[in-house]
């Protein structure tokens, strides 16, 4: 392992980490602006022009607040919870291909931290791990509302993971690979997977909403029933970590959806664009397109949050087990039959 490789990967990780945090910061701002727009209000507009400095003000506020650890809580786990939530949110970005390899001078730099050949499963594993932060935090708070919320989060996560996995299987039948890089490269130009797997995409998207605890699936933080849910007892930056983790999760799952189903950094006319821009700048342009898709998904997350009311708990379970799972299985069977028929003739 040469030092150039390590420096290159270190830089890439640092940049991706920075971008994730920046996007999470401005997602909080965007969320409030989108909510304001949908409710015919102005939203934050005091800090800086158009309130653009609002996330900074929020961050300072979070840091300045008093840190409270309840005396009856499990101190060690109480601190571990939010840290784990943020950690699990961040490590998902490692396998996402952010762009096609970039040529700088005579060096080819892949815009992906690690192209492991089980990339899709890795994402899936990270998603399933994400619930531990909520569960540990909710339990360690030693508060009945927090505990109920933790249990809700766990059952919701397990239920929707199944449908999510099944919807991915149908996609894998088409792509024949588990590597995210190869999946994205197959969608060159206009051959986006969403055109072949529309039902799979819808199931995957609904499950992503559930896995990220976003409305209408935000039962773990249902304030009318559970005060604040799992973060009732949290204050200061530990609360900030939980909120931040939610936005980073949203960013990562938007990136995964864009990469798996919406072509990642591919766009129509990318070949002619590559000729115009050259091998250094064309990949960056593709990355820009990728981020546009991600932002579109993040906006969609917010749009849904301020449009659809929260589910009731039984509705949530019915949708997961009686709606999405049978649909996903049917999708696998139909996809399998179609592939078999195409291969035969």
């Amino acid at each position, binding site marked *: 392992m040469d030092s150039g490789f390590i420096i290159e990967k270190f830089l890439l990780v640092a940049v991706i980490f920075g971008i994730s945090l920046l996007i999470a910061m401005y997602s909080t701002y965007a969320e409030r602006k989108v909510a304001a727009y949908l409710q015919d209000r102005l939203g934050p507009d005091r800090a800086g022009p158009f309130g653009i400095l609002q996330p900074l003000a929020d961050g300072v506020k979070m840091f300045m607040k008093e840190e409270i650890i309840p005396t009856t809580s499990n101190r060690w786990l109480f601190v571990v919870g939010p840290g784990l939530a943020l950690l699990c949110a961040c490590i998902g970005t490692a396998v996402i291909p952010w762009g096609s390899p970039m040529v700088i001078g005579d060096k080819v730099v892949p815009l992906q931290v690690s192209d*492991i*050949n*089980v990339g899709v499963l890795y994402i*899936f594993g990270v998603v399933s791990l994400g619930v*531990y932060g909520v*569960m540990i935090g909710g*339990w360690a708070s030693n508060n009945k509302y927090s505990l109920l919320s933790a249990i809700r989060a*766990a059952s919701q996560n*397990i239920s929707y993971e199944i449908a999510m996995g099944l919807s991915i299987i149908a996609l894998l039948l088409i792509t024949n690979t588990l590597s995210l890089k190869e999946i994205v490269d197959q969608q060159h130009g206009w051959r986006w997977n969403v055109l072949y797997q529309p039902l799979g995409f819808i199931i995957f998207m609904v499950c992503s909403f559930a896995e990220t605890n976003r409305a209408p699936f935000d039962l773990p933080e249902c304030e009318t029933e559970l005060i604040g849910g799992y973060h009732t007892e949290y204050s200061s930056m530990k609360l900030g970590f939980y909120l931040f983790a939610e936005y980073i999760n949203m960013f990562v799952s938007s990136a995964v959806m864009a990469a798996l189903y919406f072509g990642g950094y591919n766009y129509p006319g990318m070949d002619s664009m590559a000729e115009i821009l050259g091998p250094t700048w064309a990949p960056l342009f593709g990355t820009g397109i990728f981020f546009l898709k991600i932002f579109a998904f993040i906006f969609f997350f917010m749009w849904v949050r301020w449009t659809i009311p929260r589910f009731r708990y039984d509705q949530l379970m019915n949708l997961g087990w009686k709606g999405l799972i049978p649909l996903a299985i049917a999708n696998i069977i139909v996809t399998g039959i179609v592939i078999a028929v195409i291969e035969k003739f």
Partner: protein
Amino acid sequence: MSTQVFYFVATLSIIFSLMVIFAKNPIHSVLYLILTFFTFTVHYVLLNAQFLAVVNFIVYMGAIMVLFLFVLMLLNLNKDTEPAKSPLIKIIGVIAGGCLVVTLIGSLKSASITSPLILKNQELGLVENLGKELFGPFLLPFELSSLLLLAAMVGAVLLSKRDEVEA
């Protein structure tokens, strides 16, 4: 390099496994068990069995342990609810454990160290090769085990439905 990593991770596995037993709080036990499974995942990666590693990660760490934690949180076990054990049971436990240790030592003493197994194909653990093995020579056992899982699932559903029928 990879030998050192192995010894480091193996030590961690043993420490965490011991912590599972020695932790007073059942929730802490489960959390240590999760860490133990995580070190197993690292072992699989070291053996170049990526698929097994990631499946261990998803199934054991991500699903089964979440269920364990879920159940334990609902039970809310602590020292007060734990029934006091009589000294007789403790003595019986020590004797039984001692017998097991003696048996293990006896069997390990007579065991000889086999030469390390060398895989014909180093890439066997990658998804593609594993899939070809499973759906090629091992198709029948694979399908049978999936039938077994299906039977277990149907059984579980039936158990949960039973009350409804009787009522």
